């Protein structure tokens, strides 16, 4: 029967990460936002704690993944634990969260599409505990965002090599990453079937970093432009190998790109929940400090109603995330629910941070009060990993079962 009890592993991770977010991340948040960077000592602390390897499977040198099933009987908890951890980390600070060393969004495509050798290559870099390392995911281009089929970075076969040409933008940790998963097309006329994903390491000839973006929010997170000029990538770095695209999976790289979203969208949604919760809790604190004392009742009454609304919407968003994550863990198709959680949570973060600012009034303006930062940070959660509009397309294509055939 349905229940919402956290397993011991979930409970531990929640408590541990909450403690870490509160004592280590949150105190850095505002300064990191001002300086657009996170201190190296902090990153090294994460590496020493094993954070960098936290999402690396044991067979590639990481520890056992938290929530990884033991034996055949126990069910996986990875997605649910991930969701719980992400909410707490984003509660600490969403921009610093994106700085956490590790494969990041590049992890899932390597795990889903990569050959064992490629997985080994990609994850081996995280064995180094003297320096922070990152992986990254490079899909967006200047000419497209949501419309993945319009991909125009080219990959031309030349003997054992593919020659990449094109520009990728808005790539989180793209500049400092050891490797990027880069999506390119071997033939634009093939549409999605022509898409290929490459594992491109930092010092590959012809690969260079363009500008680092200045942003509305998430300022402490690195967002980079990546330029490929006759970048020569050996065919061993084509994720999954050539036969993966020819035989195994119809739709090839595009399908791979889409499949990773089923895992990552609930996580992104969980981050939005964490932001909303952080704003809500800061607001309640602020009300306790400043408001309740001698204010006229009618306005106070209105604030209470707004608090209820925020609280119930945050909870609804959280349970949507848990549901999508649970489906992922037990192997149910969760594309629709992943999109639902992402679409709703992003909207909730928008509403909650915005209302919190309005309630705080002029105090809301101040960066030191944190909420204005959260307001700037949250906006992109309705944009990256698929805009709110894309999520709704994903959803209705799965509701209209007579017109579309998706699972």
């Amino acid at each position, binding site marked *: 029967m349905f229940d919402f009890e956290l397993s011991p592993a979930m409970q531990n991770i929640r408590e541990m990460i909450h403690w870490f977010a509160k004592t280590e991340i949150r105190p850095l948040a505002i300064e990191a936002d001002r300086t657009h960077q996170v201190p190296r000592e902090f990153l090294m602390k994460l590496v020493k704690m094993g954070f960098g390897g936290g999402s690396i499977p044991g067979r590639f040198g990481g520890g056992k993944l938290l929530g990884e099933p033991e034996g055949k009987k126990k069910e996986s908890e990875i997605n649910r634990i991930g969701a719980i951890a992400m909410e707490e980390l984003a509660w600490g600070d969403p921009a610093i969260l994106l700085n956490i060393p590790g494969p990041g969004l590049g992890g899932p495509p390597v795990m889903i599409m990569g050959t064992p050798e490629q997985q080994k290559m990609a994850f081996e870099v995280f064995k180094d505990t003297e320096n922070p390392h990152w992986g990254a995911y490079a899909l967006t281009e200047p000419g497209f965002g949501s419309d993945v089929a319009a991909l125009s970075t080219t990959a031309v076969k030349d003997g054992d090599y593919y020659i990449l040409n094109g520009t990728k933008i808005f790539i989180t940790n793209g500049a400092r990453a050891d490797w990027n998963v880069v999506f390119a097309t071997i033939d634009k006329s093939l549409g999605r079937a022509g898409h290929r994903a490459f594992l491109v390491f930092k010092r590959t000839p012809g690969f260079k970093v363009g500008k680092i973006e200045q942003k509305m929010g998430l300022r402490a997170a690195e967002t980079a432009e990546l330029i490929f000029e006759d970048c020569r990538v050996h065919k061993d770095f084509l994720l999954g190998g050539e036969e993966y695209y020819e035989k195994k999976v119809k739709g090839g790289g595009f399908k791979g790109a889409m499949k990773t979203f089923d895992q990552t969208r609930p996580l992104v949604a969980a981050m939005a929940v964490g932001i909303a919760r952080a704003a809500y809790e800061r607001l309640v604190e602020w009300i306790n400090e400043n408001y309740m004392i001698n204010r006229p009742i009618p306005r106070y009454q209105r604030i209470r109603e707004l608090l209820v609304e925020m609280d*119930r919407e945050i*909870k609804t968003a959280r349970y949507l995330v848990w549901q999508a994550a649970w489906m992922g863990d037990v192997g149910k198709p969760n594309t629709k*629910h992943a999109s639902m959680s992402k679409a709703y949570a992003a909207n909730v973060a928008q509403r909650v941070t915005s209302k919190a600012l309005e309630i705080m009034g002029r105090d809301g303006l101040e960066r030191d009060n944190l909420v204005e930062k959260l307001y700037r940070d949250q906006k992109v959660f309705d944009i990256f990993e698929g805009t709110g509009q894309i999520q709704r397309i994903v959803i209705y294509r799965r509701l209209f079962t007579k017109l579309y055939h998706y699972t």
Partner: protein
Amino acid sequence: MINFEVGEDLKLVQDTIHEFSLNEVREIAREAEKIGKVPESLEKKYAELSMFLIDYPENVGGAGMDVRSSVVLYEELAWGDPAIALSLDTPGFGGLVIRFFGTDEQKVKYLSPFSDPSNFSYRIGSVWNRTFDPYDTESVTVRYVSKGGKFFLNGTGYFVHNFDNDDIYVVLALPEGSEDLKELRVFIVKKESPGITTGRKDDKIGLLSFRTGVVEFKDVEAEVLSGSQDPVKSLEESYIYFWLRIASMILGASRAALEYAIDYAQERVAFGQPIAKHQGLAFMISDMAILLEGARDYLWETAWSVVEGKASIGDVAAALAQIAVAADKICPDAIQVLGGHGYIMDHPVEKWARDAKALSLLAGSLIVFEDVASNYIVKENGGK
């Protein structure tokens, strides 16, 4: 561990009720609305399923399942028809009040008849305060006096559930001149007691087959429900269970409307293609689906918290508010998908929309839910 599976036992309940809703309830929903009551034939069939006391303890004849069972049951039954779902919950709010206020003897006496299918028309009416706000003593309209060890009631009950088709009334009353919540008492009155006059039946926006109306009490002798040590706590418990039922029913009505709209949008053609292919409308339906799914997740979490003893009336009120607000978007938008056809009684969507609204109003309204929830939020955060 976090889990959204209905589970074997409840799946059986869900499937049984779904079948019943599809084949029996939907068939008769418009007819029941027209005649203003649920036909006896349907009551009989439902009684045979023995679902009346699904989440009541076994010693009063219940099935002994926890409150999650009623959440699943009433969503499914209201998916068939919300008004009939509320009517077929014959113990209703009154039954819950007896469960939480009565002595063991009283519970057995008044609740166990529900466990016998031949009592299919046995009903409990409930006379409560006018606003249905659990803490609003000012709107209590019935007063009690005690004379020589006996209690007598005076006053008028409004929006009385099952006002003229019940066997007993459960009545909330305060002493003359008092507004103190701690002095509230709940009584049982037999339908045929002298001094009771049933007035007019409410003609309302929806839930027309669920009979509510006015009942007047003039020196009516009443039996006090005397099993509760802490009346405020018992009051809150009654509300927790009832509001979870109402929330499930609103959810069921909204799901029915959403599913109907999804089907219709794929069939109806405009500008050369099914209207589902027009993105303005498709986006609207996606949003409806998100709200519905989120509402159910929240409701389930709340029901689980109640089982675990972690939920206050404030938590339940907040969940109910979320669901009422979601329904307020889903149901009218479902009508919108059907356009003019949605407004016409040939399609059931307008009925589900009216019924969902009526459920929210009958259970107190969004203002009450949010007020109760906000009291708890303020309390939890150290306020007064």
